[in-house]
């Protein structure tokens, strides 16, 4: 064992009333990684997180966080890991500050440290001004940020964020994701973020695990996932021109590495073995073509599911 991973599961399995929800899942996350945990609803993401936190007992297999067995030493695990549940809730009638202080006290911090940590956490998520307001008065996005602050208060080594972006507007989502990335970097915190939105994961995650029906179907870098899933390991480049000529199409086809060109109106869909955007651009310019846009196709997670579970 070269280096101890922060999170490790070995053949982790969970069954509810005879249904296997998580099926021999093997997962390894190293320190400082932001791991995107992707999968459709009911794929077993939350159950895996609950088992890692020691909140649910696995049917078989082992879950470890920083070397502590989640099932046997749940208190040690809970001390070093923060958790934002999918439907996170706070005591609505109590103030923002009190809610966080309660978490801090439950972690056995001294009263001095409680106030210090709560102040810091509120600062980081930008809720200092709402510190003495009741949680009921906060917006949905603010509550999600408060949930992040709630994790920060314990200064954990690992944070589990279960769908942290549900129910907030696009601007809020981006702010939230940037906040998570910033915290993970500054505090050298390992983050596991579950989501079913590929583009959100894309934005901040260094590595992705995709789970479906309790099994890990993919584990690796994100761009790799896209290519493997749809292009069979190939890139797809979409080019829009003012006018498309067959001369131009032939020219592109001749570029080394291009596998095929599909033409539909003014759109060209080019399949190639590597990212050939510069070469394609050059070919277009050389043929006096007027380029409107060119982009590497990115796919919605749904497309990838389709690909994996046709």
């Amino acid at each position, binding site marked *: 064992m070269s280096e101890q991973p922060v999170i490790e599961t070995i053949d982790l399995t969970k069954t*509810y009333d005879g249904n296997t929800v998580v099926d021999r899942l093997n997962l390894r996350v190293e320190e400082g990684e932001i791991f995107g945990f992707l999968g459709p609803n009911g794929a077993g*993401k*939350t*159950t895996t997180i*609950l088992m890692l*936190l020691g*909140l*649910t*007992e696995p049917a078989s297999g082992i879950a470890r966080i920083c070397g502590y067995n989640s099932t046997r030493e749940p*208190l*040690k695990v*809970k*001390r070093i*890991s*923060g*958790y*934002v*549940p*999918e*439907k*996170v*809730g*706070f*005591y*609505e*009638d*109590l103030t923002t500050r009190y809610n966080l202080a*309660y*978490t801090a*006290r*439950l*972690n*056995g911090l001294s009263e001095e440290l409680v106030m210090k940590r709560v102040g810091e956490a509120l600062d980081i998520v930008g809720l200092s001004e709402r510190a003495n307001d009741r949680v009921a008065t906060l917006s949905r996005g603010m509550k999600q940020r408060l*949930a992040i602050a*709630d994790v920060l208060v*314990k200064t954990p080594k690992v944070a589990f964020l279960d769908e942290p972006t549900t129910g907030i507007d696009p601007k809020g989502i981006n702010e939230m994701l940037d906040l998570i990335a910033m915290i993970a970097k500054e505090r050298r915190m390992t983050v596991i973020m579950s989501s079913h939105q590929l583009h959100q994961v894309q934005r901040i995650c260094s590595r992705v695990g995709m789970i479906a029906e309790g099994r890990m179907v993919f584990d690796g870098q994100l761009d790799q996932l896209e290519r493997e899933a749809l292009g069979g390991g190939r890139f797809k480049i979409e080019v829009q021109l003012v006018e498309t000529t067959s001369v131009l199409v032939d020219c592109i086809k001749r570029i080394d590495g291009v596998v095929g060109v599909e033409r539909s109106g003014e759109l060209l869909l080019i399949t190639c073995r590597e990212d050939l955007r510069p070469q394609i651009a050059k070919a277009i310019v050389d043929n006096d073509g007027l380029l409107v846009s060119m982009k590497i196709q990115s796919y919605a997670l749904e497309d990838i599911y389709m690909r994996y579970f046709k």
Partner: protein
Amino acid sequence: MKSSTVSGLLTVFQKELADFFTSWRFLILFLIVFAVGIVAIVIDAQYIRQEVFEAQFVFLKLFTTSGQAVPLFVWFIAFFVPIVGIMLGFDTINSERNSGTMSRLLSQPIYRDAVINGKFLAGVVTIAIMLTGLVLFVSGIGLRMIGIPPTAEEAVRLMSFLIVSVIYGAFWLGIAMLFSVFFRRVATSALASIAVWLFGGFLFLFPLLVQLEQERFVLAIMLVSPITLFWQVTTLLLDPTARTLGQMVQSGVRVPTSALSVGQSLLTVWPYLMSIIMLTVICFAISYIKFMRTEIRST
């Protein structure tokens, strides 16, 4: 390890206690209980003035007499304390589940039982503070009205009455918490608790509703109800000349007899008191086991 057990429990306890005392629910209960308590004691005191000049245990009469056979204050405690217990307990567990605070709470490094123990303790302490305040307040008013201070024995009896009332309140808190562990919806657990309370009241009033030949049978049914048990304990504690329901059944009528000493009263009361304590322990134990075993699931 040990320190985290205690500190987790204490933190939950403090927070819950603070919650109870700052909630509207508690304030409303507090006002109602005090208002009714005062009315009861004032009426009782009127009767004392009129009737019992030469009696022993004058101060205790304040709590047990109201001219008729019905001691208003004890009636009031027997019927209102359950409401207090139910109001404090019916949503303790399921509301946290519904609002999503439970999984956050349980992901903190505390033992799981710290949550349910802390909540129960906080409820019991709230009831204790409320009832102590009430009894002291009402005693104060009574003292002004009749002008006779309680004797040492009366004070001891009053104290025991207070302790028994708190245990009785803890029982109803336990029932309410039991339902809040089992039912997901807050309304269901509230209604279930109130149903138990009404049923207990029905059993207590059983002899008034049906005329049955077999008094032993009636008695057995009555004693199933914690309200009857509490009634029995408190009347024996507060009225030294009272006899148990069993003795009354045997002798047929309630004949005035000589007063029992505090020790004898406590001895007579013991089995009934133990029944209340046992019921409380059973309720809490079932909620505890269920709470500890309930798995946290996604969705």
